[in-house]
């Protein structure tokens, strides 16, 4: 539950950075996605449409990032930071327009949210119920992990994406259109980040508010690096983080009296410890973050 939005965003990061474009704009793309998802979901009463539009919104924002960092060889980190200002800015701006000045959207009632395919199959709060009775977004996320993995490592497209991320000049000499590939990857990453935001505002809760996305984008970024730029790796990282949060909640509910602030640190400390545990020498794609210019050497 906690992990799902992270997985979406992290997958986005994986795609973009495998093509050699750093995307720290995930946070901003998620925020916009969250708002658009909640808004469309509220007005149309169709969560799927909401999810779709959220993806598109994230994608649109990603196009900005793409134009800057691919066409104009911008510093990808700077552009990403810009996205993180623009995303929330635009989101709140739109929110005020659609919800008579409110920065919080009206909430969507249960049956207009992303459905839970396995709802009611198990008896409430039984083990299975807690494990499997999840929102469709959860399954979509897991499915996407597989799809992205397949795309990156089993298809022609994936081979090209990774080649462009590793050694763009080589790809260029073989007549591969670096710009096309990178645009595709960046926009896709925006779409995924948008999904991630919607997974918050359409499944975890059913409305948007300015604080809904606070830091998830960066956690996703960390998860992607943690997962060594691989989809499955990123997924495990996200799940680990989610699990840690679960533990916190569980411990908090038990009698043992640890200061809740100390507890709250746990997920972050655990993540660090795990990284230290299996020496986290993670090196990304060779050309990651390097703008490509024809005729440059």
């Amino acid at each position, binding site marked *: *539950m*906690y992990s799902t*939005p992270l997985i979406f965003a992290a997958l986005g990061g994986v795609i973009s950075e495998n093509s050699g474009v750093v995307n720290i704009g995930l946070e901003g793309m998620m925020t916009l996605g969250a708002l658009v998802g909640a808004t469309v979901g509220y007005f149309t009463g169709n969560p799927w449409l909401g999810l779709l539009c959220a993806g598109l919104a994230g994608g649109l924002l990603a196009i900005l990032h793409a134009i800057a960092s691919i066409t104009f060889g911008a510093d990808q980190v700077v552009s990403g930071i810009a996205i993180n200002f623009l995303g929330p800015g635009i989101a709140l701006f739109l929110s005020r327009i659609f919800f008579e*000045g*409110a*920065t*919080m959207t*009206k*909430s969507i*009632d*249960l049956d207009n949210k992303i459905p839970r395919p396995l709802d009611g199959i198990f008896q*409430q*709060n039984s083990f299975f119920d*807690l494990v499997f009775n999840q929102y469709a977004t959860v399954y979509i996320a897991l499915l996407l992990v597989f799809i992205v993995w397949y795309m990156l490592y089993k298809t022609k497209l994936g081979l090209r994406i990774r080649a462009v991320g590793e050694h763009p000049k080589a790809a260029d000499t073989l007549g591969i259109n670096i710009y096309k590939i990178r645009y595709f990857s960046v926009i896709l990453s925006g779409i995924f980040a948008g999904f991630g935001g919607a997974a*918050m505002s359409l499944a*975890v*809760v*059913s*409305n948007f*508010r*300015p*604080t*809904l996305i*606070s830091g998830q984008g960066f956690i996703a970024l960390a998860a992607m690096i943690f997962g060594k730029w691989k989809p499955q790796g990123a997924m495990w990282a996200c799940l680990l983080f989610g699990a840690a*949060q*679960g533990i*916190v*909640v*569980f411990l*908090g*509910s038990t009698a043992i009296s640890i200061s*809740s*602030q100390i*507890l*709250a640190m746990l997920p972050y400390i655990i993540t660090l410890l795990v990284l230290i545990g299996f020496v986290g020498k993670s090196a990304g794609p060779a050309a990651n973050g390097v703008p490509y210019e024809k005729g440059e050497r």
Partner: protein
Amino acid sequence: GQKTPEQAEKTKLKIAMVTDVGGVNDQSFNQSAWEGLKRAEDELGIKVSYKESRQDADYGPNMESLLDEENDLIWGIGYKMGNLVKEEAEKNPEQKYAIVDYAYEKTPENLVGVVFKAEQSSFLVGYIAGKMTKTGKVGFVGGVKGNVIDGFEYGYRAGVKKANKDVKVLVQYADSFTDAAKGKAIANQMYKDGADIVFHAAGGVGDGIIEAAKEQNKFAIGVDRDQSNLAPENVLTSAMKHVDTAVFDIAKSLKEGKFPGGTTVVYGLKEGGVDIAPTSNKHVPADILKEVEDLKQQIIDGKIVVPYNEKTFSEFK
């Protein structure tokens, strides 16, 4: 003779407020305060405005620029501005100030503190929860532990205790006013552990809690304003805090030249500053509401003194 509009403008009272980081649309006390001012505008013809704060560091400058705009009264909304407002008041003796949720040992003459007995409304919703739980377990989720939230927690506990000594109260803090996902996880955990009603005083985290209630088809209790619109079927009631009333009243008395400077105005049930949501009757049976009503009376008459922190709670029989 006839006043020109300009003169009218000049003679018009001006009141402004500085929101805390929640912003004016926080669906909570900031918004409520603003509604109070708007009402003052409509009914008392007072000119009103607000300044939103994004981080704690904005309070000072916002105060300052409202000072420049020559308002007759400047509100600081939320305890976070407590000290600042006092200092401002001391720096600018000729300017009137007011603050929500803060009581000073000694209040400057040009400043009035307004506090709400959140514990009283929390007590009432606690009582309702205590009466209506089928599982004998109810929950409380706080945002970040602190005096204000303590008021909610212990008032609520007392209410539950009053209703039924044997009902267990699960208490947990989210250490955030924003992390809806965590709020949801906590609420789910509480429902799983057998609680069937959860009360929250945790801002944005509450969204997650009410969401959980919605999904599990359990009850949640809203806070600050009537939150039943978030989930009509699952919000049992809400512990309301009528910041609007307070803001309006002070505006009124200012207009009548009776500004209660130098004092701390306490808004409890008596003053209509706190209450349970009007929509409560949707889920709460009449007889319980009846009991709630005379509990109110007892509190107003001072027959019941509602505890507001651990110490007073331990003394609460």
